[in-house]
């Protein structure tokens, strides 16, 4: 099997150490934390982490936007897998109520604030309701599994077919989107105990299998 070299992008906004540790615990041979994204050659997978705020994060990828968008297109078409976690997933969409800047617009849809009926942020363990039984990330994950969420906004994809799992908090919230090898989780797999570990292993497996 191919050696797994994973890149984590650093928006300069927080905890990447535990994500790196989670990837290493689950079998990644090397994990690099990058401040620049212009050269992704040599990496078998890319992770956009989930700590920070929408506008600063978008600003931080602005200088590498072209190569990042190309890498995302490739991922959708079965190329090197990418995983956006929480904010890293929200950035894939057109825009967010958290900020004023445009999102990366690689997935169509908007990011909106959670229902005012419930406490915000949605912080804690919630159940997954799996809607796509063929999901690559959810192989071996049971319906109803608990995963850890920390977020105030959620994505509303135009194409509902990319949603692989939902959760309920104030309303139905897409918890996992999957389009080819482009994955986005609203929850934090690296913080979701053993269940999260299964998903990270699944992601790493996809990383070793594509060219």
């Amino acid at each position, binding site marked *: 099997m191919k050696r797994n070299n994973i890149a984590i992008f650093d928006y300069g906004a927080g905890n990447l150490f535990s994500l790196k540790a989670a990837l290493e615990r689950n079998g990644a041979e090397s994990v690099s934390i990058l401040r620049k994204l212009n050269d992704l050659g040599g990496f078998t997978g890319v992770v956009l982490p989930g700590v920070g705020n929408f506008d600063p994060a978008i600003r931080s990828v602005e200088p590498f936007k072209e190569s990042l968008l190309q890498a995302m297109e490739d991922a959708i078409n079965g190329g090197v897998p990418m995983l956006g976690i929480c904010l890293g997933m929200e950035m894939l969409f057109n825009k967010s109520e958290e900020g004023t800047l445009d999102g990366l617009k690689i997935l169509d849809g908007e990011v909106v604030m959670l229902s005012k009926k419930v406490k915000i942020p949605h912080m804690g363990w919630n159940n997954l309701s799996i809607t796509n039984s063929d999901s690559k990330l959810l192989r071996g994950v049971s319906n109803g599994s608990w995963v850890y969420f*920390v977020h105030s906004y959620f994505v509303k994809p135009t194409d509902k077919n990319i949603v692989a799992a939902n959760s309920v908090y104030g309303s139905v919230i897409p918890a996992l989107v999957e389009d080819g090898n482009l994955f986005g989780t609203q929850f934090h797999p690296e913080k979701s105990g053993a269940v999260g570990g299964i998903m990270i292993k699944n992601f790493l497996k996809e990383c070793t299998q594509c060219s």
Partner: protein
Amino acid sequence: MPLAKRIIPCLDVDNGRVVKGVHFEEVKEAGDPVEFAQKYKSQGADELIFLDITASQQGRETMRNVVSNVAKVIDIPFTVGGGIRMLEDAREILLSGADKVSINTAAVKNPELIRDLMSIFGRQCVVVAIDAKKNVGGREARSENSDQEYWFEVKIFGGKTGTGIDAIEWARKVESLGAGEILLTSIDADGTENGYDINLTKSICDAVRIPVIASGGCGEPKHMLEVFKQTDVDAALAASIFHYEKSSVGRVKDYLKSNGIEVRV
């Protein structure tokens, strides 16, 4: 709502060792943080909180090595507090592997720190710890509850220094400044093992829309059931019942579940 109530073991850390104090004083040693973290994770803890309890008093840096060693072995979220005075302190702790930072004294001294942390790291990273003590008299009656004989005062520097600030008003303020969560400790209840301060917890939960963690006073699983049944609190923190193995996280959760509380098991 299916969101599980969280059970959070707390590790008060002093010089890299877990300690447990009574009423914020008379600290005694209880063990190694990494061992505790691993044990609690395997028992099913939903989250961990590390508080460097003497950091504010002595200006001590929170032990980054402890944080990163813990982050290597656990796959559940954890919060680190103590000694965070400025943005750079928070960033260093987050980079060492913490998911959230908890600020207490620094937030009171400089409330704008909450907003600054929120705008850079996101609301979800910012926990404001409120140490509250019941006071009778000594202050004008609270405007909204003027029939009450007591009020809750925010204390800082590890519970030693009064501020004259009403805890309920402070909770509302930290929410509006950008706190993502409140870690509420009753100084009166802390270390007594007689149960959480239900009145305090209820007052704060009713005042804000962000999650609240109840802390101080847990001596047995029944106390967690009480605080979940009687208040809208999201999480219950405990230290001694887990440290001294009077109970385990797993047993607490089984007990709560059998009493109708939604928990992750």
